[in-house]
């Protein structure tokens, strides 16, 4: 007989897979209470490390060509496709849904990457403008990435909600740190493995597993995060999180579904004046 080699689920920070510096982990069980795995329980320090990693990744990622970013996002979809069975099995185990439902969720997540991959080299043309000002100046406005964005992933689905948050954030060149679905974090870690092998620059996406209630306030109050996707935050905590986020005027947003709006929410418009003359 052969003994199974069990998988250890860890955090994803700066392109690496560390355990929580706190040494903590928590049990992941199926809806029926069957033990599935131990997930790393991220601490405040892990979150700060993720911010540092995201900040150092920002410069290169935001200045990569839009074509290059689009290629990498598409590559993520390709690699996910190759790991379909693993994603399906983990969703079935964590969420207790049947294979068909799980498979639909994986399809939707892959298609989201493809959809956003195509936006990388288009959102600027759609949302930017040349402005007809009354004077001898060439004047244009162009959206660009905001910086480091925190996100609390949707707590209902384990995979599609996560991709709904990550993909639009990084499409424009932001880097991201995401608190995964607390109860069902297995897909998040498997997605990390996809990201780590997809040519995505290390640190562009950082994924933390752990307790949302513990991590979210640290995320909201961190002074080197520029915006937060609160889509997965419990409703009752939104006021507290937005209040903390006001310390450095983070851009806070809630979303449903995928949209161009979701990309633009974490961009900043820059207007440049340049004189015309001989």
């Amino acid at each position: 007989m052969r003994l199974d080699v069990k998988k250890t689920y860890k955090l994803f920070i700066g392109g690496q897979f560390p355990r929580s510096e706190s040494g903590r982990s928590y049990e992941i069980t199926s809806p029926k209470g069957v033990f599935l795995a131990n997930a790393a329980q991220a601490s405040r320090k892990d979150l700060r490390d993720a911010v540092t990693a995201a900040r150092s990744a920002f410069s290169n990622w935001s200045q990569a060509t839009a074509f290059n970013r689009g290629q990498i996002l598409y590559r993520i979809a390709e690699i996910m496709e190759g790991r379909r069975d693993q994603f399906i099995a983990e969703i079935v185990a964590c969420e207790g849904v049947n294979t068909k439902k799980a498979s639909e969720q994986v399809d939707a997540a892959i298609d989201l990457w493809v959809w956003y991959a195509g936006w990388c080299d288009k959102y600027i043309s759609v949302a930017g403008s040349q402005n007809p000002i009354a004077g001898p100046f060439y004047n244009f406005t162009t959206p660009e990435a905001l910086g480091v964005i925190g996100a609390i992933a949707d707590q209902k689905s384990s995979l599609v909600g996560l991709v709904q948050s990550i993909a639009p954030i990084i499409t424009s060149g932001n880097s991201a740190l995401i608190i995964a679905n607390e109860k069902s974090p297995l897909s998040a870690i498997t997605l990390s493995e996809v990201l780590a092998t997809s040519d995505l620059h290390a640190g562009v996406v950082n994924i933390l597993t752990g307790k949302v209630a513990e991590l979210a306030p640290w995320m909201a109050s961190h002074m080197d995060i520029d915006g937060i996707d609160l889509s997965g935050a419990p409703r009752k905590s939104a006021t507290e999180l937005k209040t903390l986020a006001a310390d450095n005027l983070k851009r806070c947003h809630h979303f449903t579904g995928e949209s161009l709006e979701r990309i633009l929410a974490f961009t900043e418009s820059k207007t440049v004046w340049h004189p015309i003359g001989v």
Partner: protein
Amino acid sequence: MEFTYAAAPESRSVVDIAPSYKLFINGDWVAGKGGTFPTINPATEEVLSKITQGSASDIDRAVKAARNAYTKIWSKLPAKERGKYLFRIARILQERAREFAVLETLNNGKPIRESRDVDIPLAAAHFFYHAGWADKLDYAGVGKSPKPYGVVGQIIPWNFPLLMLAWKIAPALATGNTVVLKPAETTPLTALLFAEVCQQADLPDGVVNIVTGDGRTGAALVNHPGIDKIAFTGSTEVGKIIARAIAGTEKKATLELGGKAANIIYDDAAIDQAVEGIINGIFFNQGHVCCAGSRLLVQESVYGTVLDKLQERMAKIRVGDPMDKNTDLGAINSAAQLAKIKELTSAGDSEGATRWSSPCELPEKGFWFAPTIFTGVTESHRIAREEIFGPVLSVLTFRTPAEAIEKANATPYGLSAGIWSEKSSKILWTAQNLRAGVIWSNTFNKFDPASPFGGYKESGWGREGGRHGLHGYLLTTQKSHSQKGGK
């Protein structure tokens, strides 16, 4: 032979200032419940009029009037007719431009040359620009038939009183919102004259309400449950208070806050032009400009030349009577602002920077501060980090373009920046790397209604002006991709 300028004062006979003003609510002048306070001419300290301190109950009354006007009239009016009101207002502002310019200068202290040539024409242009948007909102980029928020609370600063009013009211009305606006405590007069323009334009009652007062009036407006959206221009400190105040509500906000803009002079710049740009960047409007070029970054190889020419040019700045058409630098807007400038410049002295002020005579009455530069400034000095909001320039140097970018971006603000170089590729590279919302190359402090304005980081949320500015006043009707059946 000595050449001197003869006095060239603008006449103030064109304005008629009432001894006191009430609040403009629901198309009518109504007495407020919060008492009164004087408004003065900061150049002479002469009391111009008595202004009403709007109370919380006055705000309540104004918000109800705005809601009523929104529900019953403004939201039902065809968009093209709404636009015509804005065109009317633009025209009246143009017709009464001289009156507005004189009144602005009397109440604000800015040179008549600036109120006449910049503030008032731009305010009129803002209404004209947005008037045309009213029936074209399908093209604003937020979906088909976008909807207004409803009632918008707006709070504006004292540095460009009428222009900031125009930046707020024109897009709000064009997109179909009604407004309650609170002008700055020290500069309410042109907003009150604007109320008269609304009457003259037959704007339906309650579409624009103007409630004067201090910060307490503003707080009552921000916290009023009947407000759907806040638009604020002012300090970052107050911007954060507003962000916290609305955190637990459905209210949205656009915030246009402070700045500490870098003005970068490369060694291949046209130096004489750059010096004019430095002067315009920091001394325009007494430096009471959120996007002022208050941190000069000069490439080391041209530092001596730039500094010599800058001091020579500064000595020619004419400081004094704002009503004189030759005046370049007028009065500081208030005693409080002057005290703040003095406090920060003393910190500049005590932290080891070197002060130099233009040798000019300052009038005895009123609030004045001579054009001043500090050299030997390091990044840790308060005068390099904090917004002074006065005619004070901090001079720093750099060696390489990468160092210029690093220093320029080393601030929690991100409103504007300037670049001076004769090499376009270097300009565009610099513009790309600067984290600021408005970037002027080989120019500074240029504004246009078609050009979006607003900041990165702690300089605020959202944009004003251009197509982008409309987004702050419209609810998106865009559906998500899968809702549209795109998948």
